[in-house]
């Protein structure tokens, strides 16, 4: 598309601009941030009734932020890299003055007095916060069906789930209800919904992005990550949110490369490790799409090598001990004493019991009980410590694999988006995380990008992972692959840019 054609576009195609281009046009005064914001708000109003991707829409606040951007431009001030870009935030990221519920009854109506670190970064960059995205309660789930305020739907097929737990963020991004979104990933929570909705998501290396202000699920695994229409947008967002924050003792003091600049660089020479076993265990249409992508990689001059992650098969077992153990402790603060829901009873113990029984949904209660059990005297060694040992083995598997290759390739999920209610059995739902959990347990970088359409015309996600803090080559590879495949960005039928 030529520049001349682009500037002649009507509002219909604003949503098809990259976020860097949106910001550039706002900065040059060619696009009003307020109009852009209104355009997305109108789309939300019209389309989100069916999708339920937002829990709270802050129209007034968003328009005020957009107006401030326009005013700053009019005053000749320099604008940030996300000037006027309308974003949504997963509702487990604290936003000052704006409700943050974690899709839980226990935090219904809770308004944080401070912004998460990533939210501060977005605001400084000039972004406009449209509202808060739906999620599985406290980010526990793979379908967004565990939201206490109603499940989100997949814009590709409303009978199907958008994935989870950042399902609202992925659905809103795919449906162009936000230019992009931030989610959080503990065991695949940005990657799997991105795969199901046909968008791109990055789970940064553990420590790359500050967790300050992200409501904790499992602290040793949680990372905030961008969900965007394509690799370049995700890279732009990652560049804004990455970096050291002294308020998070686990955030790492390390220089942040120019991720967006990786888009367009030649990936030639990067060795891509393929985990054959993972691909073979997938549904046929997923396997086919992944194999097409592998051919495209060869065409880019990348060497494909077969690698193994021998302990990856234990990921689900280890993860579902470690994550609930940490969650059981992290969620203890929701006790009805200081904020959120309180169900008063005769005495303190009964107040705790009733508040937490009524405030938490079934999946959250299940994981709190699992985790409490795993940490209990007499069981700690057999469960928690053993799971930690497995985690160390998985980390070593990645170390060994990355001696032979620069990046690892697997499907993001074994299937395309499944139908609502398909995994009523928790164990069957947990198994959906098989490909995303290993990178989380190892703390390495990973991303999911669409690599084509599979069964029922639904998007298939491809996962790349890279050694910790090697996001740059991963982005370079993903961007080149995206171009080589030529299918992106994907738009769900009926969700083009028209307002």
């Amino acid at each position: 598309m030529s520049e001349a054609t682009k500037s002649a576009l009507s509002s219909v195609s604003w949503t098809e601009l990259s976020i860097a281009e949106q910001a550039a046009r706002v900065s040059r005064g060619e696009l009003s941030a307020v109009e852009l914001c209104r355009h997305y708000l109108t789309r939300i109003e019209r389309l989100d009734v069916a999708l339920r991707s937002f829990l709270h829409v802050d129209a007034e606040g968003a328009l005020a932020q957009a107006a401030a951007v326009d005013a700053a431009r009019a005053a000749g001030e320099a604008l940030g890299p996300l000037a006027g870009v309308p974003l949504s935030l997963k509702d487990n990221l604290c936003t000052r003055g704006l409700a943050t519920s974690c899709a839980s009854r226990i935090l219904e109506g809770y308004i944080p007095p401070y912004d998460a670190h990533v939210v501060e970064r977005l605001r400084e960059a000039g972004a406009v916060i449209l509202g808060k995205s739906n999620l599985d309660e406290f980010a526990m789930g793979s379908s967004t069906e565990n939201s206490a305020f109603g499940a989100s739907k997949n814009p590709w097929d409303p009978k199907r789930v958008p994935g989870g737990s950042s399902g609202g963020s992925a659905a809103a991004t795919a449906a162009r209800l936000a230019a992009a979104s931030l989610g959080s990933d503990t065991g695949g929570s940005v990657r799997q919904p991105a795969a199901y909705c046909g968008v791109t998501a990055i789970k940064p290396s553990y420590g790359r992005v500050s967790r300050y202000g992200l409501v904790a699920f499992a602290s040793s695994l949680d990372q905030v990550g961008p969900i965007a229409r394509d690799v370049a947008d995700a890279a732009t967002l990652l560049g804004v949110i990455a970096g050291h924050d002294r308020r998070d003792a686990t955030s790492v003091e390390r220089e942040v490369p120019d991720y967006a600049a990786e888009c367009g660089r030649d990936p030639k020479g990067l060795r891509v490790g393929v985990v054959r076993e993972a691909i073979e265990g997938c549904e046929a249409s997923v396997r086919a799409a992944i194999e097409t992508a592998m051919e495209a990689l060869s065409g880019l001059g990348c060497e494909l090598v077969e690698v193994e992650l021998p302990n990856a098969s234990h990921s689900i077992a280890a993860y579902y001990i470690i994550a609930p153990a940490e969650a059981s402790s992290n969620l203890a603060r929701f006790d009805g004493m200081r904020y959120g829901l309180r169900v008063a009873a005769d005495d303190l113990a009964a107040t705790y019991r009733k508040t937490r029984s009524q405030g938490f949904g079934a999946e959250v209660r299940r994981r709190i009980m699992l985790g409490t059990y795993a940490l209990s005297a007499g069981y700690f060694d057999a469960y928690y410590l053993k799971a930690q040992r497995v985690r160390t083995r998985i980390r070593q598997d990645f170390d060994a694999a990355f001696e032979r290759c620069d990046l690892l390739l697997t499907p993001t999920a074994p299937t395309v988006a499944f139908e609502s209610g398909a995994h009523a059995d928790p164990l069957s739902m947990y198994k959906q995380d098989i490909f995303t959990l290993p990178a989380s347990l190892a703390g390495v970088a990973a991303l999911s990008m669409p690599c084509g359409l599979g069964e029922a015309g639904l998007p298939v996600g491809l996962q790349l992972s890279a050694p910790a803090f090697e996001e740059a080559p991963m982005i370079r590879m993903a961007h080149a692959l995206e171009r080589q495949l030529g299918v992106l960005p994907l738009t769900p039928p009926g969700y083009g840019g028209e307002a």
Partner: protein
Amino acid sequence: MNASYETVIGLEVHAQLRTHSKLFCGCSTQFGAPPNAHTCPTCLGLPGSLPVPNAAAIELAMRAALAVGCEVRERSVFERKNYFYPDLAKGYQISQYALPLNVAGKLEVETEAGGRRVIGITRIHLEEDAAKNLHSSAAAQTLVDFNRAGVALIEIVSEPDLRSSAEAEQYLRNLREILMAVGVNDGNLEEGSFRCDANVSIRAPGATELGTRTELKNINSFRFVRKAIDYEAARHHAVIAGGGKIVQETRLWDDAQGKTVPMRSKEEAMDYRYFPDPDLPPIVVSAAQIEAAAGVLPELPATKRARYVAELGLTAADAGVLTSHPALSGFFEATVEELSSRLGGRIEPARAGKRAANFIQAEVLRDFSADGLEASLPLSAAALSELLALLEAGSISGKMAKGVLAEMIASGKPAAKIVEEQGLSQVSDSALIEEVVRKVVDGSPDNVAAYRAGKQNVVGWFVGQVMKETRGQANPRMVNELLRKLLEGE
């Protein structure tokens, strides 16, 4: 019941570290602020908040450890102690469990028999304090003040090496003194910055196994510690003598009733589900950091006492009094040093030490007051040393010195100025004194005759006359000497 049953006591002390900010956030630790004035998302446990360790607290905890001979571990781990209570914002306390910062120290106590015993210190670990629940029975509600939540503490756990309540008190006093001396803790029991729990059991003579213990809480004064331990040991005796068994439980000291009452039994004891806090990387301290902390460690009270006796000529009792508070020993040492330098070193250290020690104890101590590590003295060491130098030079008498000191404290004026203004300077000029003495002797031949006839006590009358003539400023020692010389007819 065999009275020779042995009492076995182990103590757990919680000492607040003297940091300006809390252990995991930047909030102030100042005592006495309005409720919840010193709070932030982190110490209130708000969703999404995270802890960041305070380096100063780790440094102070190391200093405490080195002062009691602990080994500082190069790698230690913060863990979460999980339980529900309204004073615990996060539903867990950040503490240390499997891998504490410091292990294996010791502390000496003086026994009742006058000997010394070494008490083992198992470990010293870092942890955060809880908030304070304020129960209002009138309003039938409990309010929580989070100012204290997250304040840095060290828990100092002793081995069960103590054998009497007196030893336990000794241990606590010595520990408190050491922590104050190295600037780690302000020793303030009233404000709760030095708190203690005791584990008590008894066993038959010769037994090697420990008896079943009970844990005593709410013993936050030295007096309560002794009373509670004595009561509890007697209760154990009575139960066992009656053929009963001690139940392992936690008991509270009720001072009004003068007894311990059950709080919770072992069966009700909580499973704290400790696990490493994933928000906090392990504490790693280098050998160099440990060495640096050891290097800045001030002289400990026991060493100080020994030095005062050996070098400054003090009795053990005087040394004990002057090392009872860091401010007092500091004042004493500065006074001795200034006195010596004022006299250009023409005074033996032991003489300077003794003079300062005697004068401080006799005249200054009554105006000394301490509130934790904060202490107030009525005058500076420099001012006092000036007065003592005048005394040492014989320019004023001991009796005059007391009057001058009172005036110094009242007016803040230096000693020399007061002496000059009041014309107090003692006359030590032998020619001048001899002139007056000769005049008095010559003017009273009757009394001279009486003296020579054996009425020795007329000397007093002569001294009185000389003092009257010199307005009390003659050096009494010189007056006496000269009088005797003249009266003896030399």
